[in-house]
């Protein structure tokens, strides 16, 4: 069996056709770097959204006349709500302490009574709840006995949810466009590199090579191109991310670092691109020249 010959042929294509190999590897590396970069930025922005949305705060202010019964009803209501992640009761005294901490003024020195109401500070995970559901939660809490008013950053929440939807749509489109461009670029580069080797293909067929025999070295070469391109992309992305972080030191902390699982993911995607691209291109070439 000539498996050794076919594997050797596949690898030697790298040195025999240096320019097409270089172009194919560079295309795969650049495409994967772009994809990886788009993913990293996207996932970081996504994390910011998630952080903001999962820690959204709402304050339920209580009337001075609130009874223990009212409070326990409010508490029960909040505890039973699936999107409420934490509940903290702020007594009038604690509110006064917070006030003096924040404003540096002791209320008891200015007024002879404590005007601040007691309240519940709650955290909501707003990822799986719509703007209107939050509004209706707030409205229903306001109707609860002993509740004076419910405050939350209504406008911020609306904007956040609106931008989150836009981000998901635009991010998805950008990722698809980059992916489409990568597939198009890689498949065309492989087509060109196979066209550059049409002489080898023609001669192999003349001396009696089967289509599978002709195809195998090109497919091996495509997979090797994919693997090398993926490794280069991993290094390139790491350098870009670390370089950006370094340049932005002291200005902004991006908090972005390359996720290690991207290396095997790049390898998988790169080798798959190489495999499918070369398989498809060589088959098209063989069919066209038959």
């Amino acid at each position, binding site marked *: 069996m*000539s498996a*050794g010959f076919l594997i050797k042929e596949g690898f030697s294509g790298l040195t025999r056709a240096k320019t097409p190999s270089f172009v194919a590897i560079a295309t795969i590396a650049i495409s994967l770097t772009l994809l990886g970069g788009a993913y990293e930025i996207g996932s970081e922005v996504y994390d910011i959204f998630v952080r903001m949305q999962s820690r959204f705060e709402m304050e339920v202010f209580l009337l001075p006349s609130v009874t223990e019964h009212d409070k326990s009803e409010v508490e029960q209501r909040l505890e039973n709500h699936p999107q409420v992640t934490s509940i903290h009761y702020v007594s009038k005294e604690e509110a006064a302490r917070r006030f003096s901490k924040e404003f540096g003024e002791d209320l008891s020195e200015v007024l002879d009574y404590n005007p601040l109401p007691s309240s519940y500070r709650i955290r909501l995970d707003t990822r799986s709840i719509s703007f209107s559901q939050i509004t209706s939660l707030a409205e229903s809490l306001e109707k609860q006995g002993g509740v004076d008013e419910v405050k939350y950053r209504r406008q911020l929440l609306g904007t956040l949810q609106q931008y989150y939807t836009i981000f998901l749509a635009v991010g998805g489109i950008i990722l698809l466009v980059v992916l489409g461009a990568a597939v198009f670029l890689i498949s065309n580069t492989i087509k060109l590199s196979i066209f550059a080797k049409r002489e080898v293909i*023609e*001669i*192999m067929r003349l*001396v*009696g*090579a*089967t289509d599978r025999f002709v195809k195998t070295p090109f497919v091996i070469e495509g997979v090797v191109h994919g693997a090398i391109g993926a490794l280069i992309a991993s290094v390139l992305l790491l350098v870009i991310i670390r370089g950006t972080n370094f340049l932005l030191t002291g200005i902004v902390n991006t908090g972005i670092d390359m996720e290690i699982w991207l290396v095997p993911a790049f390898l998988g995607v790169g080798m798959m691109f190489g495999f499918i691209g070369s398989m498809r291109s060589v088959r098209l070439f063989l069919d066209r020249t038959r």
Partner: protein
Amino acid sequence: MIDFYNVTKNYGNGIGVRNLNFNIRKGEFVCVVGASGAGKSTILKLIYMDEFPTTGKVVVNDYDSSMIEPESIPHLRRKVGMVFQDFRLLSDRNVFENVGLALEVMHVNRREIKKRVLRALNSVGIGHRAQYYPRELSGGEQQRVSIARAIVKDPFVLLADEPTGNLDPDIARDLLALMQRIHERGTAVIMATHNYNLIKNRPFRRIRIEQGEMVDS
């Protein structure tokens, strides 16, 4: 061994060959003679089934052009040696690798390839050039490599399409003598040429083609 039955091949831009009927027997040396564009190359392409008749059929041993499956064509070509005017050697492989390629595609093992390639190279008088690259060889030497590649697989027929077309007359005569020696060892040879002077005093059967038609055999 090779039979043409009412073979016509039309190309989009004009006729290739028309109504050919002939038979080539085992071990024959046949020259297909005619001017450029007469249809000589088409006849050879029809034999190694790079082209198929528009009407009629070509039968090469057990391979019938009207019934052959695409997967069987490589198997036919492993039994047919081919030599071209432009040599068709791979410039990025040395002489040994160029000749060995014909056996690699047949899955012959490494040791056997080495033995048979060196034997073929020596039989065409070029064994000492095994490690050279085609660009380092003269035209005559390159054609010998191409002949070695054709005979290394012990074909039953050697098809040569204007094999001396790019060579000096002396070298052309040497190559013809080489093909005669191959023929004497039992391989049929079909050579297409427009150079009538090269073969006029030789005892070869001639098939004369003019504008795609056979005028003399």
